[in-house]
């Protein structure tokens, strides 16, 4: 048991890095995912994860497989798409999801074009699916700083985030902070996706965000608890995914997701049962 669970992390440096990276990413991504879900923007994360592809690809084309330019590229393009679609929805009749769909599809098309123009399919696979077992110091540093920024931003803006989700019109009547909080939140989404893409790839980094959040929703009826449960689920399934991929020598990015997905039906069943056991309280 010790050999199977703890051994790999003690013996191998790359496993320690992967562990550190996954755990920090989990702690950072899960709360962002919870708010995405609560704002009915679950698929926005998905759209954004596609949208950052051309930025990453451009960085890759110009500077090779180097984390910094790819990250900055992804960040810039992701922010352009997020802010662009936000602005279009604010100032035109277009709904935010529609304008985001348009922006991200264009972005994805450009991204695939760029990658296939001057790269082999191996490179494409790397950009799309990442490699958590090959995290270097730079990547770890990036992930840790993004987590720190996310933690601070969510902490400081907590009240605004909750108010903006719960009763946006009320918030607009007492404060002008709603718009800035919304944009800051989109920035956090992009940051976390970019942080995740070294480890999990552009397409799959959104999984670490959404799956734990969606799973946690079955368990709790309070935002704070939801965030904590989502973090716990994310950490545990990242750990499980790493170990499984180590032992089965399979790609670890997709594995994380397969694990989380497999647990999903079980969770639905359990929480249904819990809901039945907890008899609804009759309002007085």
């Amino acid at each position, binding site marked *: 048991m010790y050999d199977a669970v703890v051994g790999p992390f003690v013996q191998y440096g790359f496993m320690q890095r992967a562990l550190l990276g996954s755990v920090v990413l989990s702690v950072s991504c899960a709360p962002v995912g919870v708010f995405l879900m609560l704002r009915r923007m679950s698929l926005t994360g998905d759209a954004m994860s596609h949208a950052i592809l051309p930025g990453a690809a451009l960085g890759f084309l110009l500077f090779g497989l180097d984390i910094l330019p790819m990250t900055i590229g992804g960040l810039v393009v992701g922010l352009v798409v997020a802010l662009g679609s936000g602005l279009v929805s604010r100032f035109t009749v277009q709904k935010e999801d529609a304008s985001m769909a348009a922006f991200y599809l264009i972005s994805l098309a450009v991204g695939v074009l760029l990658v296939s123009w001057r790269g082999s399919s191996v490179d494409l696979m790397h950009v799309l699916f990442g490699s958590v077992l090959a995290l270097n110091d730079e990547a770890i540093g990036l992930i840790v700083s993004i987590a720190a920024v996310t933690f601070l931003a969510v902490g400081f803006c907590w009240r605004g985030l909750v108010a903006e989700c719960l009763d946006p019109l009320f918030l607009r009547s*007492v404060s002008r902070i709603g718009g800035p909080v919304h944009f800051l939140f989109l920035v956090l989404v992009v940051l976390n996706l970019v942080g995740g893409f070294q480890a999990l790839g552009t397409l799959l980094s959104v999984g670490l965000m959404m799956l734990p959040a969606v799973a946690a929703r079955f368990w709790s009826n309070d*935002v704070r608890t939801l965030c904590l449960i989502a973090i716990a689920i994310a950490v545990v399934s990242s750990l499980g995914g790493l170990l499984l991929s180590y032992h089965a020598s399979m790609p670890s990015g997709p594995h994380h997701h397969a694990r989380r997905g497999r647990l999903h039906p079980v969770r639905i069943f359990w929480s249904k049962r819990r809901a039945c056991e907890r008899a609804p309280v009759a309002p007085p």
Partner: protein
Amino acid sequence: MSDICLEFKNLTLGYQGRAAVHHLSGTAERGVLTAIVGANGSGKSTLMKGIAGILMPISGTCEQHFGRLAYLPQQSELDRTFPARVVDLVSLGFWQDRGLLGRITRRDRAKLAACLDAVGLTGFEKRPLDSLSGGQMQRALFARTMLQNADLILLDEPFNAVDERTVGDLLCLIKEWAAEGRTVLCVLHDHALVREHFRQTLLIARKLVAWGSTSEVLTSENLRRARNFHEAWDETAGWCEDERSNSSSVARQDDEPKQRVAAHV
């Protein structure tokens, strides 16, 4: 003039350049309970948003002579499935005092408990929002409005999907607020309720039909005119200037309520 709380001057409000409330003029006195009455789509909620500063005027002004505003949007604007507790919703009422980062003190918590007490939700702090009935939710929202300690209170259809007992309790609260010198504007559909409890009424049909004491405003003649305005407007879809120049009778009727308001002030 110190007893004037709100002063509309030729106020036109709307969305994306299309007007929904046209050329509204008049004043609201301090400490008076005013009902805002009109058909669906007559611009009641738009007017509320305009006063709350959520919507910028297309033209004209809304001069505000009050300290603090509390706005209670329609319940449908709220995400009732959001996983939060009653205390999270109600404590939003501290926003004007505490802002984004200010700590909610023990004294604040006591105040919150007292407000929950006043709306009949004693001990509901920890209850999840999705377990509340429509009436309990509205009571919680009234508690939040009380916490805001505002001089002008805007209530947008507060009695939608609320049972009779709750309406009675909430009406008592609204009357207390007015007695404390707060100005209350309340969007309502139930004319019987308005006649019984509201001293002043503003009848709107995309433009002001009448504004004054309830008995003078809610006449069958005014209600008929409101209906006619509303239908006439649907045909010309928005541009008030044409309407005003085309139909002199409308312009004449427009002056009438102004005189009535003036007489009342």
